[in-house]
Structure formats: structure tokens, C-alpha cells
């Protein structure tokens, strides 16, 4: 937060301050899970905020949290690759090339519309996949408890979840929800 405080004292950036206040803790936790290192997570979060500050707020931004997380994970990969190479190249040559956040739906209403189809999409899933997905992802129940109740091992649980999520994501994308071009490799 030190970096942010410094840079905002020079040039107040209300948007970024709010972003950090609302999502900073969650982001740090998520980065910790992905990086398995608190110091790396903190570094990446700082670098991300610094970069977002430089780039300024995108003109059309519907989901700041998604935008922040995407940017931070991109930054994390850059950070790790740089560490691995131990190169001395300047910090931003590569980073500046990835400012574009995956395009989000044009209107929030459109996202809401697509979500209205979630229920129908879930109905199409095989029952066990649906149970795993709804209870774990949507209702936040415990993974171990759900698996025990359904009588499946945790590996099967993960596979059900993965299939269900991929399916939902594809069906929602067909309705225009979600980052476009994600499937292109």
C-alpha cells in the first residue's frame, strides 16, 4: 500500500484507491494462492497497482474487480518470468504491452440477461455435475461435505466441477457473456 499512498499523494486517483480498498485484500489472498509466496504476492500487487495507475482507467469498464484480477495475474506471470531469467531489462518493456483488458460485455444489462439463462444451462448438466457446481460454486458449501454426500472421491469432484464450469462458461459466452477471444490460442 506504500507505493499507492505515494503515487496518490502526487496525483489523486480516486478510482484506484477505491479499487484497492474494496478488492485489495481479496487480490492479495488470491495471488498468495497462485504464487505460494506472500512477498511475491505483495510485489505483484504493487506492480499491478503501479501499472494501472500509469495506464489510467479504461474508458469502458464494467467489472473493475475482474479487470484488476486479470491484470494482476498477467503481471504475476511477467514477474515470475523476469525473476527466473534474472534479467536486468527494464521493468516495463513487456508489461506495457499487456494493458488491454479482455473486452467485457458492452452493457451490464447484457450480462444480467445472460445470467438469467444460468438456470436453464444448469438444468442441462448431468445431475452430479450440477449438484457439485451449484452447491460448491454458487452456494459455497464445503467440497469435502458435498463429495461425501454424493459418494464420490475428491478427484471425481474436481472433474465434475471442471466439466460443469467449462460448459456453463461456453454457454454463457454464446450469449455474449465473458471475455471474448478467450478460446483463441
Amino acid at each position, binding site marked *: 500500500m506504500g507505493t499507492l499512498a505515494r503515487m496518490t499523494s502526487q496525483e489523486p486517483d480516486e478510482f484506484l484507491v477505491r479499487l484497492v480498498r474494496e478488492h485489495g485484500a481479496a487480490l492479495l489472498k*488470491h495471488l498468495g*494462492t*497462485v504464487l*505460494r509466496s506472500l512477498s511475491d504476492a505483495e510485489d505483484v500487487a504493487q506492480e499491478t497497482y503501479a501499472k494501472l495507475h500509469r495506464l489510467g482507467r479504461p474508458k469502458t469498464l464494467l*467489472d473493475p*474487480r*475482474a*479487470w*484488476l*484480477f*486479470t*491484470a494482476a*495475474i*498477467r503481471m504475476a*506471470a511477467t514477474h*515470475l*518470468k523476469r525473476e*527466473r531469467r534474472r534479467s536486468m531489462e527494464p521493468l516495463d518493456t513487456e508489461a506495457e504491452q499487456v494493458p488491454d*483488458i*479482455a473486452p*467485457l460485455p458492452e452493457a451490464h444489462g447484457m*450480462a*444480467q440477461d445472460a*445470467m*438469467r439463462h*444460468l*438456470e*436453464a444451462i*444448469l*438444468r442441462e448438466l448431468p*445431475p452430479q455435475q*450440477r*449438484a457439485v457446481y*451449484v*452447491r460448491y460454486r*454458487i*452456494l*459455497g*458449501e*464445503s*467440497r469435502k*461435505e458435498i463429495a461425501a454426500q454424493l459418494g464420490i472421491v*475428491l478427484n471425481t469432484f*474436481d*472433474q465434475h*466441477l*471442471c*466439466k460443469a*464450469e*467449462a460448459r456453463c*462458461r461456453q454457454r*454463457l459466452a454464446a450469449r455474449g*457473456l*465473458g*471475455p471474448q477471444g*478467450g*478460446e483463441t*490460442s
Partner: protein
Amino acid sequence: MIPSFINPDDHRGIALWWIIRLTADDMGEEEYQEFRRWWLSDPRHSEAFAVETGWRQQFQALLTPEIRARCAALCAEQVSAGKPRSRRMIQYAIAAAVVAATVIGGFVLRNGGSVSQSYATQTGQSRTVTFQDGSVAYLNTRTRIRWLGGTQERHVALLEGEALFEVAPDPAHAFHVSVDRSEIRVLGTRFNVYRKPSGETLVTVLEGTVEVRRPADAQHASWRQVLGKDQQATYSAADASPVVRQTDALRAVKWREGAADINNQPLSEAIEELSRYTDQRIVAADPRLRSITINAILQVHNAHESLTRLAKVIPIAVGENQNVITLTYREPAISQR
């Protein structure tokens, strides 16, 4: 190991798999290193992982309490469709000496920090639940609800059974009850909701005003109905609109006193009502029983006793054999009223 059903070229799919594994709390160091190699070995992998991460945040943000409640209802449907309620299982549950109703489970949702908690009653039980906003729900027999409210919204899903809601007034935060695909919206009032096993839903208002609505879906147009005091709406999934009638709302909540108010209804209605509170099966096979109508207040917690009392005024005879109560037609005797 990445499961074989994911196409090796499907970078988003593999990214999704890794996110699931990373958040699963049983990922060992070796597997984690496998993830790191995948993540950093190809810019397409890094990008897919970032995009997938963002998408999940976006998805979570779009999960409104209403959508969550509707999805919860979907799960309830599935359980009752997949596993028919087994009599033996119910008895087993009762034999487990569950005297008071049980909290099925409480947990904190990952998103937004709102607490979601389930409450249920077994056959013949009732229970009072006070939510964090001060609203109260009285649960009747065989009822399951889930509180999904947070600081911003108040939301309850009625998954099964019947509940009387006393909503704490709060004009800033509407109180929602989801029943299957319909939703009841209020600001502060008392109303009763009964989700019948047949799929029919009854909403009865004791005080204030409520709005019942159902959003459109692929098969049905939307509808919206405002109900005032002593109005009752009846509808099922396929109905284009609810049927609304004037009623004495207090009759609908007689169950709070352990009674059912059967007001000029066929005998079958009384049997259906009594069956809710017992695991005994009530059999009425004789076709002549169909023409009998009843106008009475029945005590619901002892079906045999209530029917025996009824037998004094209507032409039925009551037999009981273990878990079956049998009703037969009795020729009207001299003492007939």
C-alpha cells in the same frame, strides 16, 4: 495431472482445471510445480490463466442473491427427483431422536461475506427461526429454507414445505422469498408461503402488502401480482398467472396452533393435510368417500385421533394397522346428523 477429458489445445480449459486445483486445499508441492511449469512455459497459457481468473471474478459478481436462490431451488428439485422420499429413511431419521429441528449447515459464502444458512424441520415438527435482520420465520412440518441474506439484501429460499414470515420493517432493504421460479417481495409484513409437494404454491398475506412475481423463462411469460391483507394467491409452475382470492388469512396459519382449518373441502384435502404431519399412510380407497365434504378444524398432530373424531360426524370408519390408517365408507347410521 490434467484430466484426459480436457483437450491439450484448450488452454482456457486447462487454466480452469488449475484454478480449481489451486483453490482446492489438497494440492501438493509436486502438482503445484506442474502448474507453474504449465503457466510459465507458453504465453498462451499465461494469458488463458489470466483471462480465466478474471472471468471467475466477473461471474461471482454477477451472482445476485436472486440467482443464487433460484439455483439453490434447482438443487432441491434435483434431490427430490433423484431420490424419492423413502419412508424407511424418514423413520430412520426420526429414530435418530431428532427432537428439535436441525440446522443443516451454516457456512460463509466466498463472495461478499454474506452468511448462508439452512434450516429444516422433520415430519411433525415446527420451529422458529430468527434471521440476522430480526425477521422471523416459523417453519411448519417437512420444511426446508435457506437464508441467503447479507447486509445489502434479505433473501430466503423456500425449498420445501411451509413457513410464516414476519418481516422486520426496513424500507431500504426489500425482503425476498424465492419459491421455485417465483419470487415474493416485501418491505415489512406477515405472510405465509406453502410450497405443496404437488408443485402448487400458496401465498397468503396476513398484514401489509407483498408482491409475487415470476420472471419469464423459455416456456413461460412473466407475471406479477400484488396481494393485500387477507388475499391468497395460488399458482404452479405452468400457470400463466396466479389465481387470487379473498380469504381469512388467519385460517391459513392455523398450523401455528397445531390445527388445520378445512373449510368446505373434500375429504381428500383433510387427508392431504393430516398426512403432512405423520409418516403414517392414510388410505381412502372407497370411491364413495370422494363425495364427502368437510367443514372442521382438525388437530394435525395425531391423525388417527382426528379422523376418529371426524368419523362421528361424517360417514367414515377408521382402521389403523401399524403405519397405515385406512378409511372406509360407513353407511349412515340412525344417529346421523
